[in-house]
């Protein structure tokens, strides 16, 4: 019995009136965990009850602690009839189970009812006492940390990145059980919410076990999804990347640096100096390896010494021009062997991360994806979800072989998704084939010398663009040139990836959001026939999506896509494809050729004229876009960067290494046409394409948008952020259901949605919409639903123009807490500037290092600081209230009337020493889909937020129709997420994602139902400005991270 869960119910407020006669409520609370239930006393006749209950204690297994949610039900006592439920609160106590996260959950939670929405709030305190060393209990996996963030969390350092973990659990959907026919919608919804909560707890526990088996201590990039398979059941599945993480702010390691930062930091590069060759070798410096000497962990100091000896070998890698091209081959081969050994024992060398520690990503091959169409059948035995497992295993296998065909051993930025319509289900998986540095993949002891040398050889900023596959035996016809950055290795002419833009990537100009949108009609069919029809359509859709993306990319004058996400959704009578990505101009890749239009009937004069008119329009657009996104690559490079004349002779060495390229990847399609990019407009369809190319309107000036974490080319974010969700549903008139009309409708829908966003957020200009995430679904025959979640971040326009500082600032921005990245940083600068001054830039990063070392101090001060932050928020309202309060306090008689008249005042008046206004301000909780908060430092991760809500109504019209209903529901979901974060002691959610928003309506019956699933990481952040003040004021000392809890929730 390894745990004791303690719960205290303090008070309620703003309860609904449950007794019409008295306009009051007799409320009490049931607290349930597992099969144990406690009750509070009934608090008679009040809308603001003060229960102040005893501590309810549950003695439970830690397995249950992980699986079960704490269930709090608020009821209205009724003497003569059954008690009426007011609503419930589910609290996931997982964050209390690992030591570094929250220690207490305490705060006001919205009381939620699936029929009425939020009905008042309840103040609850939850604590857990854990008795044993939990890791001995193999059934539970307490202590494994979970992160939704798809990069190494900011205040941690990756010691080892173990790799892919996945799990799925299945169950019957309560909505489809026979009992659903006789129970109320409320009971059915609650059964569903509870079941999903249980299942995700179980899933998380099982994944945790796998992580422990791999000897990891955390899951990063954790993505959990629900498949509502209807009749055939409910699937909850999750994927993630197992890691061993080290907390960065361990005070022992940083205190000296804090006291005399400049000295410490300067000495380090000089210590490295005994090896002069490294400096002469130009862009590459040994600084990266030095990272380990900072690490408090022992195993790594050992490693650092080994890497020192490795470095003496570097001269062997000749850096003369051209020679690297030759040597690159064997290196690649050797690296491949190395990585292979590291990855071979793994069934799936997949990583859900999209951003990586420097040096981790060596080469990127391109996007790999796989889809399969399945017919759902009833899950007979929930304990053995073999079919579903097998389906996914099949797809992952396919992904793996695609990656192999690209000469890669790993897949990064990996994700999985489904689209279900009736009994047909499309499973999709995609990722980016890549070659990884094995250094992070295994324990330091196994590490050989090879990868070190190879790293030396890799020029920063372009290394990842170099092709990992064999030139001669290319898996698809690609057009290779020498890298425009280092001129030593080959690069493709375009690069598609699902990952974020690597921090050190050399980029020209700014990026932009690029979308491909597509609809295809499909005949209505049943079962097998339907599945076959869909399977037949899929390749065509993929092809068209890729063509569209390629065209739009060229039109923007860019040459690479990051964060590519292609979603194919299935409906009754159509398929929809929506691809989003962020286009950039990579300095390493060749300038994209323009788009040429060719007509099939050249003899027609007017037709010719039309063609040339179109051509002109396209050329103009390209020119305009280049100006808009500030793409002006140095012109001289054009000459040097011509295609390589003799690729054949050189690559013979590699033949033995080449992979069997019998696998045909999806990518073939997109890479079909190369240099002379000719669009043949021989039919109306193609005409449409060209038109649609030109209809995409660029965002209004002052706006930028991307779907990645950071916007390429913008780096000086200011602190204002606004996260939002926007949902649109359109009904297609059934008359004009042709592919073309559909495409136009869909295109308009997306474009109008974007336009609306730009308009709504116009007060934030200049700003950038980051992490724009579109989801499309087909809830019914003629309905298309598009859901967008993104964050708008303001930036400083003046500074943005100084592109020279881009690299430095960018790495400071994102990597300020990560020491490794800090050390990586001079390396980047060297590649840009001259090799002769590797130290001036180091100065710059000294500053960041010192603020970095200030973390412990900041953490200690968080609680203090945050409350003062809340104080500052208070406006004259509080002042007025305070004033009024002090005046009133004079007479006792008056309070009687006040209690009657003001529901708010009542609770607080009992305790006269604290006027109601003192704790009235609701703490601000920021939400963002990004992994960071601009202008602030994340000091602590409090645990994962994973919530599932159902809302149903039988009075749709009265609630403002579908828009009113969903608007209120989404606002409520945000409120509940914020309340949970605040109760954990946090002030922000990062990596927030709305994974599901399933909306169903039946206007004839005046009914609607919606399911929403959201997740993210609850964190504590401190403004950088405050951080500086704190660290200068107070001498650094050890801190108790736990002290941050509680205070924030007031």
């Amino acid at each position, binding site marked *: 019995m390894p745990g004791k869960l303690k719960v205290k119910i303090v008070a309620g407020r703003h309860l609904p009136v449950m007794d019409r006669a008295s306009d009051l409520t007799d409320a009490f609370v049931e607290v349930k965990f597992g099969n144990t239930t406690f009750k509070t006393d009934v608090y008679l006749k009040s809308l603001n009850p003060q229960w102040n209950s005893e501590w309810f204690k549950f003695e439970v297994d830690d397995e249950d602690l992980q699986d079960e949610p704490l269930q709090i039900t608020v009821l209205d006592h009724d003497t003569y009839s059954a008690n009426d439920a007011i609503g419930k609160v589910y609290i996931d106590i997982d964050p209390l189970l690992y030591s570094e996260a929250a220690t207490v959950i305490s705060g006001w939670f919205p009381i939620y009812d699936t029929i009425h929405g939020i009905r008042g709030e309840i103040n609850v305190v939850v604590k857990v006492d854990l008795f044993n060393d939990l890791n001995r209990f193999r059934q539970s996996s307490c202590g494994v940390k979970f992160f939704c963030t798809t990069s190494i969390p900011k205040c941690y350092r990756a010691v080892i990145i173990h790799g892919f973990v996945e799990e799925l659990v299945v169950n019957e959907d309560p909505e489809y059980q026979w009992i659903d026919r006789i129970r109320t919608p409320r009971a059915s919804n609650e059964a569903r919410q509870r079941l999903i909560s249980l299942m995700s707890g179980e899933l998380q526990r099982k994944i945790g076990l796998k992580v422990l088996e791999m000897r990891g201590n955390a899951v990063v990039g954790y993505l959990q999804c629900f498949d509502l398979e209807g009749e055939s059941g409910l699937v909850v599945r999750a994927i993630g990347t197992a890691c061993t993480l080290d907390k960065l702010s361990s005070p022992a390691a940083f205190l000296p640096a804090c006291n005399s930062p400049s000295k410490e930091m300067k000495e380090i590069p000089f210590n490295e100096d005994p090896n002069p060759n490294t400096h002469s070798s130009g862009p590459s410096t040994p600084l990266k390896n030095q990272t380990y000497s900072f690490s408090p962990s022992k195993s790594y100091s050992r490693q650092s010494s080994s890497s020192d000896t490795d470095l003496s070998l570097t001269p062997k890698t000749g850096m003369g021009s051209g020679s690297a091209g030759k040597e690159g081959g064997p290196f690649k081969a050797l690296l491949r062997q190395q990585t292979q050994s590291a990855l071979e024992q793994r069934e799936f060398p997949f990583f859900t991360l999209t951003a990586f520690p420097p040096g981790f990503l060596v080469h990127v091959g391109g996007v790999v994806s796989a889809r399969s169409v399945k017919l759902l059948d009833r899950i007979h035995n929930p304990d053995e979800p073999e079919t579903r497992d097998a389906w996914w295993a099949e797809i992952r296998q396919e992904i793996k072989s695609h990656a192999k065909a690209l000469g890669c051993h790993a897949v990064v930025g990996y994700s999985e998704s489904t689209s279900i319509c009736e009994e047909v289900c499309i499973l999709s998986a995609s990722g980016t084939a890549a070659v990884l540095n094995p250094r992070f993949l295994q324990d330091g002891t196994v590490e050989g010398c090879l990868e070190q040398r190879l790293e030396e050889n890799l020029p920063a900023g372009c290394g990842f663009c170099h092709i990992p596959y064999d030139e001669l035996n290319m898996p698809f016809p690609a057009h290779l040139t020498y890298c425009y950055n280092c001129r030593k290795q080959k690069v493709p002419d375009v690069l598609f990836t699902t990952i974020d833009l690597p921090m050190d990537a050399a980029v020209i100009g700014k990026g932009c959001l690029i979308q491909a949108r597509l609809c295809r009609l499909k005949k209505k069919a049943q079962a097998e026939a339907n599945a076959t029809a869909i399977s037949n359509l899929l390749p065509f859709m993929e092809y068209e999506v890729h063509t569209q993306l390629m065209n739009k990319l060229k039109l923007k004058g860019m040459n690479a896509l990051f964060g590519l996400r292609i979603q194919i959704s299935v409906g009754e009578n159509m398929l929809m494809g929506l691809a989003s990505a962020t286009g950039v101009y990579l300095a390493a890749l060749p300038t994209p050729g323009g788009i040429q239009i060719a007509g099939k009937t050249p003899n027609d004069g007017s037709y010719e004229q039309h063609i040339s008119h179109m051509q002109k329009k396209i050329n103009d657009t390209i020119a305009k876009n280049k100006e808009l996104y500030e793409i002006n690559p140095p012109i001289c490079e054009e000459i040097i960067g011509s295609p390589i004349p003799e690729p054949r002779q050189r690559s013979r060495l590699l033949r033995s290494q080449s992979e069997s390229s019998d696998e045909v990847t999806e990518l073939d399609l997109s890479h079909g046409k190369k240099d002379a990019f000719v669009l043949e407009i021989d039919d109306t369809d193609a005409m449409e394409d060209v038109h649609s190319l030109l209809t995409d309107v660029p965002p209004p000036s002052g706006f930028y948008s991307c779907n990645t974490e950071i916007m390429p080319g913008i780096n000086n974010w200011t602190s204002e952020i606004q996260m939002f969700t926007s949902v*649109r549903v359109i009904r297609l008139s059934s008359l004009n259901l042709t592919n073309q009309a559909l495409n136009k409708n869909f295109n308009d829908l997306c474009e109008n949605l974007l336009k*609306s966003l730009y308009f709504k957020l116009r007060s934030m200009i200049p700003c950038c919409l980051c992490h724009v995430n579109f989801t499309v679904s087909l809830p019914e025959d003629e309905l298309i639903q598009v859901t967008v979640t993104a964050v708008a971040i303001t930036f400083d326009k003046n500074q943005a123009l100084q592109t020279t500082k881009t690299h430095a600032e960018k790495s400071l921005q994102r990597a300020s807490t990560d020491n490794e990245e800090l050390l990586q940083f001079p390396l980047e600068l060297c590649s840009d500037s001259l090799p002769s001054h590797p130290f001036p830039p180091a100065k710059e990063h000294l500053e960041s290092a010192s603020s970095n070392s200030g973390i412990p101090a900041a953490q200690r001060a968080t609680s203090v600081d945050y409350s003062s932050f809340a104080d500052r928020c208070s406006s004259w309202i509080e002042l007025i209230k305070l004033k009024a*309060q002090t005046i009133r306090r004079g007479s006792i008689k008056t309070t009687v*009337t006040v209690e009657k008249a003001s529901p*708010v005042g009542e609770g607080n008046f009992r305790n006269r020493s604290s006027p109601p206004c003192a704790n009235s301000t609701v703490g601000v909780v920021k939400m963002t889909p990004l992994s960071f908060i601009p202008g602030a430092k994340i000091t602590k991760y409090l645990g994962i937020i994973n919530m599932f809500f159902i809302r149903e109504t039988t009075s749709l019209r009265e609630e403002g129709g579908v828009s009113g209903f969903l*608007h209120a529901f989404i606002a409520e979901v945000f409120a509940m997420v914020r309340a949970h974060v605040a109760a954990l002691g946090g002030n922000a959610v990062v990596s927030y994602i709305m994974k599901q928003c399933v909306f169903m309506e039946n206007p004839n019956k005046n009914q609607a139902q919606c399911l929403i699933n959201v997740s993210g990481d609850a964190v504590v952040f401190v403004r950088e400005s405050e951080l500086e003040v704190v660290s200068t004021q107070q001498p650094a000392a050890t801190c108790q991270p736990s002290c941050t809890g509680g205070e924030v929730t007031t």
Partner: protein
Amino acid sequence: MTSELDIFVGNTTLIDEDVYRLWLDGYSVSDAVALRVRSGILEQTGATAAVLQSDTMDHYRTFQMLERLLHAPPKLLHQLIFQIPPSRQALLIERYYAFDEAFVREVLGKKLSKGTKKDLDDISTKTGITLKSCRRQFDNFKRVFKVVEEMRGSLVDNIQQHFLLSDRLARDYAAIVFFANNRFETGKKKLQYLSFGDFAFCAELMIQNWTLGAVGEAPTDPDPQADDMDMDLDKEFLQDLKELKVLVADKDLLDLHKSLVCTALRGKLGVFSEMEANFKNLSRGLVNVAAKLTHNKDVRDLFVDLVEKFVEPCRSDHWPLNDVRLFLNQYAASVHSLDGFRHQALWDRYMGTLRGCLLRLCHD
């Protein structure tokens, strides 16, 4: 293609001040869109009418959801559903409770009942304010009235605490509530020249001096828990006012009073002769107003009487405001020299307030 559903929800609730104003002014979505188009916003932002329509709908929906909370502003501060910065919360509340001068003049002093509410159509037609906006303003008055009606303590403070209004607006509401409670007649034709500000000024003086609360707050009061209601006039005080009648009933006293005033003001007043001729009429008017205040009916007509008995005679003789001030000061002060008159304190309480009111009422 028709849009079935179209929503935007921000983590921080977006509030567009212009749209909020349109909503408060009671415009329908389509009217609001038309007005926004006319404001030239499309040209400024390059947006389309459809975008504007969708944006307006979104804001209207948000405001409708917020309205429930605005009815009890402290709820807006405590609620968790909408994350709104405090400065914006203050703006929402302040604007919601703001009212139109034209409207308030129509209902000032009327009973805030269903009957009055039915007349809102007429008021709407007369003032050009939309019916919706009239209803909101009327309901605000009524809501504030209901909440503070039974409450003790300072009226302004009560309003400020329960509705979180700015000082100025809370004072205005105190006046509205005070007028509604005492049903002062303000709608008569001869009162039309008076603004809401004039009445509010008088209300404040009367609350400060003529109510139970005024007595309770006096430092000499031995019992701090005494009734300190701000809404009702002090009944005892009104009864006592009958005693002032002696000032005009006793001919000697009246003559003495007149001579004291005339002596003091001779040469200082531009309208001295008119004053001298009118003194007895004016004094009778002012004292009789006081003596009548025991009857509710006469309380209601207070302003009508003041205008009839004092403001109009002064106006017909073209008294400059400064002369009115000098006269009233002297008129009030001279009573202290009347040896036979024993109700000095009562006189000061009455005349102090009345002097302020009359000065305010004397304009065109």
